[in-house]
């Protein structure tokens, strides 16, 4: 029972960052109706930038955070220009394939300059761990969860309580009607992309400080986790992406605890298949 609870708590904390990745995917997919496979790799570049800043100025955590987020945003702008704005008149599948090409570019660039080395990423080691009864809350996991929750709250206030958020959700619901209401659809699309990159960069900081290292395969990892979280939640629903991330995290930690690490990803993909096969929501039109 304690094992189950411990794994549940670990899963919720890990899952909060998957939720952030899922929200990033959902923002882009919901508003532009196009899949951005290069979302993970843009975060990868951000984390490498943060890692270098961390090596150059040990202890300057804020500089590491800023470097990670800014690099992720710049990379996001590059992806938006190449795969979305330049191909806006092409079929959505053309955008998706081109994001795959950009993904490979980014991953190869990082591998070239880093020679596939594992790079360290600083974490605020002074934070204490908490014990609640028999449950241990690791400091890095607590930071992951509280950081992700704060970012999600801010994001939901922005999307559900502001004029900008109304425009974003209106474009996601019907871009034609939104244009008739006077919403500049292309500007809102670019802004949603920028917002997703920012969320991705922040998620990158939270994940990397917990793992304390990064390899060039982080891009693949983040894309897979984010896509799975989004699809588990019903492809395009913002609250769904939050739930999808948490479910994915819990399934992973429970599998890890009870069956061992080698089953972890197999279990989450089996779950993803079941959800897509059984849920009508997962196969319906995307919405925010």
């Amino acid at each position, binding site marked *: 029972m304690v094992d189950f609870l411990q794994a549940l708590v670990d899963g919720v904390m890990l899952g909060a960052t998957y939720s952030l990745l899922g929200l990033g995917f959902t923002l882009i997919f919901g508003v532009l109706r196009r899949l951005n496979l290069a979302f993970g790799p843009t975060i990868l570049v951000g984390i490498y930038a943060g890692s270098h800043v961390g090596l150059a100025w040990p202890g300057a955590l804020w500089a590491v955070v800023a470097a990670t987020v800014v690099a992720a945003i710049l990379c996001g702008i590059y992806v938006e220009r190449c795969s979305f704005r330049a191909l806006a008149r092409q079929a959505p599948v053309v955008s998706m394939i081109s994001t795959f090409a950009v993904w490979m570019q980014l991953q190869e660039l990082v591998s070239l300059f880093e020679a596939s080395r594992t790079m360290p990423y600083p974490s605020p080691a002074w934070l204490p761990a908490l014990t609640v009864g028999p449950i241990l809350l690791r400091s890095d996991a607590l930071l992951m969860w509280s950081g992700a929750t704060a970012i999600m709250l801010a994001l939901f206030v922005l999307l559900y309580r502001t004029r900008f958020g109304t425009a974003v*959700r*209106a474009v996601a619901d019907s871009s034609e009607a939104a244009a008739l*209401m006077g919403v*500049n659809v292309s500007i809102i699309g670019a802004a949603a992309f920028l917002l997703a990159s920012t969320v991705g960069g922040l998620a990158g900081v939270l994940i990397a400080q917990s793992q304390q290292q990064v390899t060039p395969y982080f891009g693949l990892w983040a894309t897979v986790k984010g896509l799975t979280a989004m699809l588990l939640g019903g492809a395009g629903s913002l609250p769904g992406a939050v739930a999808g991330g948490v479910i994915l995290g819990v399934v992973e930690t429970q599998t890890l605890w009870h069956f061992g690490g080698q089953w972890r990803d197999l279990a989450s993909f089996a779950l993803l298949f079941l959800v897509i096969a059984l849920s009508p929501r997962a196969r319906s039109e995307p919405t925010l």
Partner: protein
Amino acid sequence: MLEVRDVVTSYGMIQALRGVSLTAREGEVTCILGPNGAGKTTLLYTIAGILRPRSGSISFQGRELAGTSAPDVVGRGISLVPENRLVFPHMTVRENLFAGAYVRLGRDRAGVEADLDAMFARFPILKQRAGQAAGTLSGGEQQMLAVARALMARPRLLMMDEPSLGLAPLVVEQIFQIVQGLNREGITVLLVEQNARLALSIAHHAYLLEQGRIAFHGTPSEVSANEGISRAYLGIKGG
């Protein structure tokens, strides 16, 4: 109020509007009749700034409108209730109304809130459904929401594209009473409608659009008196 002169709009190589001229006079209901594919929706979208005319001019209250972007057109007082209503299905009724006021939401929050209350007073059913996702409303309720959403931008010219489409006769009558009421309050209406008899019953002036050109225009009684048009659009034999 609205002067459309020799407007040509194309989709690639295909000319949808081949030199359309039309006037919507202030305080009147002007209706556009015509078969499917005549270019009626294209005309409304060109006025709304969603489509750019290849040539011709559109002036509104004496100022040129052709080539103006959609947000500026809404800001200058023209709103469109689109065909098939196009409410935002996953947003609540209240959020749909806020989205309708998008162009003035930033600078006139208090005015928007007041208008929201006014809409709820005018359409009590929308108040009952305020927190409900718009996609769960009936067709008639969605049409009312689409009209209310357009009104939230405080238009001087309200354009409506096929408001009767897919609605039960009683509901259609209700919608037309609303349109007539709005017109009596001073809103100029440009109405595209397949139901010619109903449209003519509230219109002051009617245009017949065929294959991208205005084929005929006149008062409703002049339209009804024209034998060919009556036969084709009103289902009356003889004339």
